[in-house]
């Protein structure tokens, strides 16, 4: 799919983002007469600052978390470096996205309603419920299609499980060591603090040493379900694209399969091709990390906005409803309609009618009826005129 065309827009308007989701002109920096730009920093400057800030925070996190690099495993330096670059890319794109007027408004409003002191306790409970339902169980996807849900749940939890281990390990926050007095006991350190001790032949050891294999199997199972769905669903077949829908699956497949092959190499094949495989695996992981800010995986970071929208809707429902100026029926909250008018003004959408009304105050069914009535009226007028001409 292509980016939407850029039409001439009034100052302060923004474009619709390109298909890859990156904001085309996110902040809508107004151009002043004479081509001057305003004094406040533009969207790109702001996002560059966010990106650099994220990079610095991550580097500091690595430095302090690994106790001045004492726990840092230099063999994993490529993973750590790619993670920092990926983090900077994500911060850049996220901040560009946040500067789009509708996104900025929902972001601001979502936090405002969530942090409202009078409702904070209730909101926190609701947040926990929403988190469980939407994030842990992902029930909204289940209601869309069970097969889609199965694939998504396995892939997302497989990836999160792998990330929960890989990032702390490659940042030097997590370290495993045998006990000084026994080869049978393993210690797990988090930033130099011993958090776990377990025998090497225990169940805990089995799970901990194979957590990445478990994650890989989950992801591979998810990919299989996803491919079945994509092969059978004619709707998906017509709209899917290689770059957006299949390439991410290829990446995850490469990461998972090379990871599993590493385990097979060390446990079954006595280390055959281990060096080559670990380099190949590193390349696939680094490519995936680099892809995070640009492609489909970015929705992981956008998705939590869904929670903010819930709080916004709660606040809207508790307030005054919006009533259609044509039929008088309710069609949402006044809060939403008024906020949308503000967003539209920022985007250069002008629904102000010549009679002083605002088209945004007309409900969707009335918009549809109105269009049909106008067109019908035109035909009636035309046939009346032609009758008049015929008769006289």
């Amino acid at each position, binding site marked *: 799919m292509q980016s939407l065309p850029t039409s001439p827009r009034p100052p302060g308007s923004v474009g619709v983002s390109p298909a890859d989701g990156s904001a085309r002109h996110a902040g809508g920096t107004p151009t002043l007469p004479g081509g001057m730009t305003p004094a406040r920093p533009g969207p790109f400057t702001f996002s560059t600052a966010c990106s650099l800030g994220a990079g610095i925070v991550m580097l500091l996190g690595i430095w302090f978390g690994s106790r001045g690099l004492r726990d840092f495993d230099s063999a994993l330096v490529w993973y750590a470096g790619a993670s920092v670059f990926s983090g900077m890319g994500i911060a850049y794109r996220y901040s560009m996205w946040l500067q789009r007027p509708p996104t900025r408004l929902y972001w601001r409003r979502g936090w405002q309603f969530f942090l409202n002191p009078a409702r904070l306790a209730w909101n926190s409970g609701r947040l926990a419920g929403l988190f469980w339902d939407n994030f842990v169980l992902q029930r909204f996807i289940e209601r869309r299609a069970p097969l889609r849900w199965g694939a998504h749940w396995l892939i997302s939890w497989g990836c999160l499980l792998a990330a929960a281990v890989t990032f702390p390990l490659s940042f030097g926050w997590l370290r495993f060591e045998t006990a000084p007095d026994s080869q049978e006991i393993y210690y797990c350190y988090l930033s130099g603090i011993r958090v776990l001790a377990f025998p090497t032949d225990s169940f805990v050891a089995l799970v901990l040493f194979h957590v990445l294999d478990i994650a890989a199997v989950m992801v591979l199972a998810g990919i299989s379900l996803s491919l079945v769905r994509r092969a059978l669903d004619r709707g998906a077949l017509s709209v899917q694209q290689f770059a957006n829908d299949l390439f991410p699956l290829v990446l995850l497949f490469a990461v998972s399969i090379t990871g599993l092959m590493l385990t097979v190499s060390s446990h079954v094949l006595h280390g055959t091709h281990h060096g080559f495989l670990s380099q190949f695996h590193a390349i696939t992981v680094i490519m995936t990390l680099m892809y995070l800010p640009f492609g489909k995986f970015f929705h992981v970071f956008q998705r939590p906005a869904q929670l903010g929208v819930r709080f916004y809707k709660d606040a809207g429902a508790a307030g005054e409803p919006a009533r259609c100026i044509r039929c008088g029926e309710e069609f949402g909250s006044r809060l939403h309609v008024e906020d949308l008018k503000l967003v539209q003004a920022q985007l250069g959408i002008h629904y102000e009618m010549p009679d002083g009304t605002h088209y945004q105050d007309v409900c969707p069914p009335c918009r549809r009826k109105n269009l049909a009535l*106008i067109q019908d009226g035109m035909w009636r007028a035309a046939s009346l005129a032609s009758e008049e001409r015929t008769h006289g």
Partner: protein
Amino acid sequence: MELNFFVDYHRCIGCQACVQACQECDTHRGVSMIHLETIRRADSVQTAPQVCMHCADPICARVCPADAIKKTPDGVVQSSLKPRCIGCTNCVIACPFGVPRYTVEVDQMMKCDMCYDRTSIGKKPMCATVCPSGALSYTTLDDFRRDRRGTPVNEWVFGGETVRTRVFVVVPPPTEQMLIQLTTAAGGGAGPDTPADRDDVASLLEGR
């Protein structure tokens, strides 16, 4: 020859064939995306279908905070991307034609995508295939001009906003632009449609 979509509201006979056919579309199987409005006019009842008009610069996409609405190179504005849509309903209440639908259970907006599974391979959309009255048709501009009355228009003015669409509406010549003002069944200013009578045609069509 490029195929185009033409809507001629006043030809609609309210048969609901389009509503049924829309459910067969593979991109949203089982759920109809077309709107069929029943309008109570002073002298009769009118029904009118509304499909997505596939705007050149879609307002639905511009107000979407999640970047969830994309347009294909052939000008078809797609339904929301499932991984992205956060169900805020901005698009639902901002679209000038009242097209997008929000479904609570799946927390997602869905809308007409001109049967992209079909039109992307040169077939007609489901609704235009079954419409018996010509209210919805999908053909070339040349064929349309040869066979039909009226002139196709795809520029709309909603107050200060001018919207160009891929889908045409059929109006008497020499119209070039659709100027949209608020009108009611009686033709006068704003106000509710004629109140419902349980046994009139409109009530029966609306299933009240």
